[in-house]
């Protein structure tokens, strides 16, 4: 648990731990991809592949009593919040064994015990997180409510309303902005008054920091500060992490709007896993061989989970109306 009010907490996670988290995230998403051509996942699927360093970097600082509200691209945040990966994957595969018995699917996972939820509507994670933040304030705990948003969401009205309220009332809200420069095909720079989201923070007199979201250590360090700020009762904070979305906006998106060389380059230069591996090597923390073994072990775990999920039943059609109201 991070220390309150300290900018660098004692138990800084090791790069090896962070790398492991990212590996598991990558393989989780890759397993999900397999459900698309088979139509086991029959709606559009948004993965966080390429953006692992953001979720992995905040993960160490998230406590069980913190709430996290995520977006359409939510799987990695669920894993960061320690949602059972098997039940999350089962939900993504629309199974009766999923978190939400197949009702929510990949865009709407809800795990009340882990205080994790999401929404498919851009910007709408913020107001809900605000409610969790108000609850923490009422209860005088130092729990944090985290709202994850994309860069595109920062242009929604919900962003402004929520940040203003959080700041006016000094609520413990941490806004994590995954700035991958695109909202589907629309470049942030073409539709935004500022090049970064963080520089809007003075309009709310709130703490903000911008970080390289492909560098998991940098994210973790900045996240430690951000959580400490919010937990310390100093009001809301914003952590903006620049990152890259490796795949189309959703599976099936032809991604014609990004220049081919831009896409190529990012895969080579901006993969947070590769970057972490490079650094592990540089620091002499792990050999190529060791890392290959880790990767293999992580992939195997994900594939075993996938196999288990695949054998699970779909919800029975007879229960279509179940859960629509309490007692039904």
């Amino acid at each position: 648990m991070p220390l309150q009010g300290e900018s660098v907490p004692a138990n800084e996670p090791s790069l090896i731990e962070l790398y492991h988290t990212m590996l598991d995230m990558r393989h989780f998403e890759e397993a999900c991809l397999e459900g698309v051509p088979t139509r086991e996942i029959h709606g559009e699927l948004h993965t966080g592949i390429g953006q692992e360093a953001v979720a992995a970097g905040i993960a160490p600082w998230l406590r069980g009593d913190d709430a996290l509200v995520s977006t359409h691209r939510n799987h990695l945040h669920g894993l960061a919040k320690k949602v059972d990966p098997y039940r999350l994957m089962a939900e993504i595969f629309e199974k009766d064994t999923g978190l939400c018995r197949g009702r929510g699917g990949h865009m709407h996972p809800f795990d009340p015990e882990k205080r994790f939820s999401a929404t498919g509507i851009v910007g709408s994670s913020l107001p809900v997180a605000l409610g969790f933040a108000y609850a923490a304030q009422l209860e005088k705990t130092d729990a944090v409510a985290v709202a994850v948003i994309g860069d595109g969401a920062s242009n929604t009205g919900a962003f402004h309303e929520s940040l203003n309220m959080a700041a006016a009332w000094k609520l413990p809200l941490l806004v994590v902005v995954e700035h991958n420069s695109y909202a589907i095909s629309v470049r942030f720079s073409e539709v935004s008054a500022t090049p970064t989201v963080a520089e809007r923070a003075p309009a709310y007199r709130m703490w903000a920091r911008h970080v390289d979201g492909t560098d998991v250590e940098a994210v973790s360090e900045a996240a430690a500060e951000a959580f400490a700020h919010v937990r310390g009762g100093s009001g809301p904070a914003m952590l903006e992490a620049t990152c890259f979305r490796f795949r189309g906006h959703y599976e099936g998106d032809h991604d014609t709007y990004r220049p081919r060389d831009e896409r190529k380059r990012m895969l080579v230069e901006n993969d947070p896993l590769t970057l972490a591996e490079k650094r592990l090597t540089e620091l002499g923390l792990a050999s190529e061989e060791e890392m290959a073994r880790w990767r293999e072990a992580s992939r195997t775990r994900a594939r075993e989970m996938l196999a288990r999920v695949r054998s699970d039943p779909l919800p029975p059609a007879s229960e279509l109306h179940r859960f629509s109201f309490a007692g039904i």
Partner: protein
Amino acid sequence: MNSTPVRNLRFSQVIGEAISLEMEADEKVLLLGEDIGRSGGVFGVTRQLQARFGEARVRDTPISEMAFTGMGVGLAMAGYRPVVEIMFVDFIGVCLEQVMNAMSKIPYMSGGNTRVPMVLRTAGGCIGSAAQHSQCLWGLFAHLPGMAVVCPSSPHDYKGLMAASIQSDDPVVFIENKRQLNKLVSSYPLDAFVPEERYTVPLGKAKVVREGSDLTLVTISASVGDALVAASRLEGEGVSVEVVDLRTLVPLDIATVATSVSKTGRLLVVDEDFLSFGMSGEIIARTLEELGTAAVRQVKRHAMPDIPLPASIALEQAAVPSADSIADVIRSMS
């Protein structure tokens, strides 16, 4: 019906009393909204509540409906029972997102693992404020799945249905009628007795508020009062009107309506909300599904025409159903 004297209360105070009793009974109940705190609400519903329960539980918000409605959703998920006020139902367009896609869908989307016991209080009805401040829109909420839609009419129900709404584990939209809020309960054409103690009126039970044999008049909210006045007048003209107060659109108690129509054979639906694609069509369709077409001799609707409400009183009066216009419609059916 009851010998205890009617208290000298406004409808707004009755609602405030219900909220206040629920807040006393359950510390998880809290209120969010514009002007509900220091000023006690533009219709006075929440007067004194901030003084009694503190600012944390009766909180004045900025004009940020999307944020504070969603805040209600988050609070409900965190174990609270928020009562969120949208001052006029007409403003719902700035925050319907949180109502339709979060509040009312999370219970189902979560496979029942998350309940959203939230009440969205708002005010509908026509009091001369033109197109952007006069709508009812209960038909809009009732079309969207996942939330109860409650529109009381009698003083007794205003209190009991509000209590039931706050106690409900489901999301509820509670629509008060501006035509009633500032009035004394004694103006209600039926029994206006409101017990002082805490009680509930169950959601989803319609009520026959006047018995009759020639025609079933189904309505909701303030129009129930108008319907009762019209029915009394018509009694003198030899027409016996049975009046059904639906009380809630979701859940909808069609059985009570069908029972009445199977007796009278004729159905008139009166609605202060817009005519088309709303309550009146639904009630007619359901009744006929229940009874078959052969059992019903005549169906008719009398509702707000499908136009934005005009500012001018001359036009407004021609648009909004009233006791007079209801009586005229019934006469035209006879």
